[in-house]
């Protein structure tokens, strides 16, 4: 069924969040809160070197220490053949993932795991790590993406030959692959242009900075049964990776998703779980592991840093005739940067006749990147939307008008293939135009910037169950870990279909043995895809309840109507019966066919893409270079906001992370390739007092492929901030800041250079 034009009682309201009390009172059980009897503490020995050959690892002394139950290193893990994995978010190779969890011959970044111990206390585990004797042959290292591409750069993988180029290179290099997207004839396009603008831009890798470090508790029983409690965006993903990396069948692994303290894409792969299971197998005890914040920074994935060039050509009237982009994405120690979406998203907001985009996936001696909120899109959009601002200035056309003139619409063919359908970009730009922020005069000394963003959003495989309990209350179970309010949104959709209040439905995340396969939480897919499964399960329950009412009344099922959580006889011809509510039907369930429940699994298609536009006003302290965000408005097409407060929270959170990316977050490496700021003191995520009030404006252009019209909302809001802020700084100071972060020293230096 489709409810888009129905009058809705639950969807679109703002009930109290279902996980709120547990989180506020500390009752919520995160992975680090889990305990088991006889539990050991697992700890990881990490490389102090950015790049080194492991000559030898001697664990004798560590193993002999009292209280140590197991010591493992690369030799304790199966050697995994190179094979593409389609388990997590973004490209992954099983061999690379295995080597990332535990190095074998080489360590490829400072923080790379190369051994682990399990001991009765954390202090003994630490002491044991210090007793492991490793001989390294330190190798030259390379950190920066363009340095890694240069001839003569230290090569990380002797067997890596650039793919996507012809002929196949004869020598290995750090360029894993080259991707190209072409539409029309870009050379001919530039010849038509009256105005051409060009720019070079760099962005820094930034960490997802989830507040909860990775943690898990694993137990390997003598009969081979494995239990894992972990903090993850996909417990089926953890099961699949652990099974493959350790050679265990999936039916022998049960993964319980703990309450999760943030993921943002960074918990879509495994780091600790295969190590904890191996330590448990060797020690015969349950093993608990948790990263420190330092470990999180040194060993888990940020998103890519990048070096980019962009060129755009336009007619005098503002019509863009050609667009070209080169993107060099740093992947970390193993291939797999989000170069694909990086190449696709930069120009996806515009209707362009001639486009040429080339992308490079480049390894260097840094932690392997992981997905981070709209992977690749914020990076590419910083470059494109900064240059769009330059184009507007050069043409003398207002920044919004330029975008309106070239905006993608339904039917626009993108440069990477698909044709945009049912998109709301025009509605978003209309909302910018009519917003009081955009219309307000600029205060003296302030600058204003505008930038837009696009994200695909995805659907995919999801399973959901709806149970009517014996008292008529409802439990909804899904396989989707809740990182952004999906328990609330799913419960509300189920409640809407059943005609009961949101509070009558309790939504849980079921473990891998308790529900059908569900792809991980990522790509802004859960409210769309899992929501679709849950809606259909609720509809099946309603059909079943109508049948049960018909049976009770002994009338045909067609003569039963479901309304406001109750079965009614449909019209006077059906007979005069008192309506039956959920509690009444549940009470009689034993006599009408047994327990009331339905499970639906879907492979949801038709996730509607999302578009956003952010308006930002800044002031710049010209003596210190400090940028203050004075006003911030984030406008986004959300399809249908199931729970508007959560949607606004997603938009504000994405913008906040983008503000950190723009102004203060960066990895600082010393000359040895060691990270100097592996902590929240010096890796500067914005604090609350850095934040302006972020006004979230919800534009609702329904996605017809979802029962309630929902689109993914969690990723779009991190895309526009960097360019919006850069454009505002340009407006306030006349300076184009092409390198992130736009930190005070950089801005002061640019001001001094400009005189």
């Amino acid at each position: 069924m489709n409810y888009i034009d129905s009058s809705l009682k639950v969807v679109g309201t703002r009930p109290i969040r279902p996980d709120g009390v547990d989180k506020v009172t500390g009752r919520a059980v995160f992975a680090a809160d889990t305990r088991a009897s006889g539990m050991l503490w697992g700890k990881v020995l990490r490389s102090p070197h950015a790049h080194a050959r492991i000559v030898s690892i001697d664990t004798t002394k560590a193993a002999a220490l009292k209280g140590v139950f197991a010591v493992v290193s690369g030799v304790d893990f199966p050697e995994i053949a190179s094979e593409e994995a389609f388990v997590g978010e973004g490209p992954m190779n099983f061999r690379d993932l295995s080597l990332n969890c535990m190095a074998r011959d080489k360590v490829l970044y400072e923080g790379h795991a190369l051994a682990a111990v399990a001991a009765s206390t954390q202090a003994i585990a630490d002491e044991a790590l210090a007793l492991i004797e490793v001989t390294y042959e330190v190798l030259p290292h390379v950190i920066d993406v363009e340095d890694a591409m240069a001839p003569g750069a230290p090569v990380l993988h002797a067997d890596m030959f650039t793919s996507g180029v012809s002929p196949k290179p004869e020598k290995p290099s750090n360029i894993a692959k080259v991707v190209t997207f072409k539409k029309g004839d870009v050379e001919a396009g530039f010849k038509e242009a009256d105005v051409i603008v060009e720019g070079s831009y760099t962005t820094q890798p930034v960490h997802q900075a989830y507040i909860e470090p990775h943690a898990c508790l694993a137990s390997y029983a003598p009969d081979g049964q494995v239990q894992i409690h972990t903090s993850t965006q996909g417990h089926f993903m953890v099961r699949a990776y652990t099974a493959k990396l350790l050679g265990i069948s999936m039916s022998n692994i049960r993964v319980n998703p703990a309450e999760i303290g943030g993921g943002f894409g960074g918990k879509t792969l495994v780091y600790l779980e295969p190590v904890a299971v191996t330590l448990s197998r060797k020690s015969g005890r349950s093993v608990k592991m948790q990263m420190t914040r330092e470990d999180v920074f040194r060993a888990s994935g940020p998103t890519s840093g990048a070096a980019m060039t962009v060129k755009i050509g336009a007619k005098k009237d503002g019509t863009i005739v050609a667009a070209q982009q080169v993107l060099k994405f740093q992947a970390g120690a193993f291939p797999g940067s989000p170069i694909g979406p990086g190449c696709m998203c930069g120009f996806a907001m515009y209707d362009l006749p001639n486009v040429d985009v080339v992308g490079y996936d480049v390894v260097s001696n840094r932690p392997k990147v992981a997905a981070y909120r709209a992977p690749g899109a914020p990076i590419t959009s910083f470059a494109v939307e900064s240059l769009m601002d330059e184009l507007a200035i050069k043409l003398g056309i207002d920044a919004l008008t330029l975008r309106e003139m070239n905006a993608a619409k339904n039917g626009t063919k993108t440069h990477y293939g698909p044709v945009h359908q049912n998109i709301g970009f025009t509605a978003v730009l209309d909302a910018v135009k009519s917003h009081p922020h955009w219309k307000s005069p600029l205060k003296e000394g302030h600058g204003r910037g505008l930038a837009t963003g696009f994200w695909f959003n995805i659907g995919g495989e999801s399973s959901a169950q709806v149970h009517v309990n014996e008292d008529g209350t409802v439990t909804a179970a899904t396989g989707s870990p809740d990182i952004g309010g999906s328990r609330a949104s799913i419960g509300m959709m189920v409640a809407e279909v059943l005609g009961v209040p949101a509070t009558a439905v309790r939504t849980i995340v079921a473990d891998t043995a308790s529900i059908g396969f569900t792809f991980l939480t990522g790509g802004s897919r859960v409210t769309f895809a899992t929501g679709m499964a849950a809606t259909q399960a609720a509809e099946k329950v309603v059909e079943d309840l109508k049948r049960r009412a018909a049976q009770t009344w002994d009338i045909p099922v067609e003569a039963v109507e479901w309304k406001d959580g109750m079965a009614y006889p449909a019209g006077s011809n059906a007979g005069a019966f008192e309506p039956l509510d959920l509690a009444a039907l549940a009470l009689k369930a034993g006599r009408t066919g047994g327990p009331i429940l339905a499970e639906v699994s879907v492979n949801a298609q038709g996730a509607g893409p999302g578009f956003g536009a952010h308006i930002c006003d800044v002031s710049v302290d010209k003596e210190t270079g400090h940028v203050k965000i004075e006003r911030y408005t984030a406008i986004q097409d959300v399809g249908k906001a199931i729970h508007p407060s959560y949607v606004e929270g997603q938009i504000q959170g994405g913008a906040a992370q983008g503000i950190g990316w723009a102004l203060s977050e960066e990895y600082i490496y010393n000359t040895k390739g060691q990270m100097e700021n592996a902590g929240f003191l010096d890796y500067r995520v914005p604090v609350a007092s850095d934040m302006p009030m972020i006004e979230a404006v919800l534009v609702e252009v329904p996605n017809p492929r979802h029962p309630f019209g929902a689109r993914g909302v969690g990723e779009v809001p991190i895309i526009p901030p960097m360019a919006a802020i850069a454009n505002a700084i340009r407006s306030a100071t006349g300076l184009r800041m092409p390198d992130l972060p736009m930190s005070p020293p950089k801005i002061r230096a640019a001001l001094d250079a400009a005189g």
Partner: protein
Amino acid sequence: MTSLSYAAPTSVDDAVKLLAGSAGLAKVLSGGTDLLVQMRSGRLKPELIVDTKKIPGIIGIREENGAFIIGAGTPGAVVEAHAGLNAAWPGLVEALDLIGSTQVQGRCSLAGNLCNASPAADSVPALFAAGATAIIVGSKGRREVPVEQIPTGPGRTSLAKDEFILEFKLPVRPARSSDAYLRFIPRTEMDIAVVGCGISVTLDANGVCTAARVSLGAVAPTVLLVQEAADVLIGHTLDADTLAKLDAVAQAACKPITDKRGTIEYRTKIAGVLARRVAAIAFDRANGIKNGKAH
């Protein structure tokens, strides 16, 4: 396994004896907001911790002959709630208030901030500018020394192994005196100073500076007391020429390093900027202007 002993003596003598008698590394604990972090990170592995908070008088603020005495272990939050200190030493109070979060303010102390001996410590430039002295106790008895003689380098002090600070004494405040402190951080709070600056001044009835002390943080291995900067102020009102000279001498005094928190070039420029801004606030306050342009 290494072991750790903890003692909370109730007298100065007992505390000194414990410190003197420790064979390994002994650390004095007041608020612990630096010590515990350093222990947790593995940077410090003390054998003995001597908690001084149970020593009578080490927490609290009193006035003696018009001068304020602040107990070494007095938490930041207690100092900030003290009306007399706020009136006489607003710069010192605002500097201490910048340390850490609200939770940290319940514990952090002037003595801890000084003896941690970080060149970027926020309260230290304000203490230097104030001309505070520290009452130090140890097995050789009591001594009173100017605070600027205590830090000797990053993480190092002139205190002997068995010595600790019992209290700070602030000088009697003449009329038309005040102070101010600013630091520059990339964020708005919860950060470490890239540069800090504390200035204390006394003005005459015409607004001419008669006494000044200027201190800079995070631009050298220790917090600096910059006499040349004080000399620029003394005998002048805060006119454009004086401000320009102050900026120049503050920059000239800097001997910073480039590290993850700032470059030599940037720190030096910001030292000049802050000196001007802090002087403006201190002069306004001394002139009785509460909400002048500088605020």
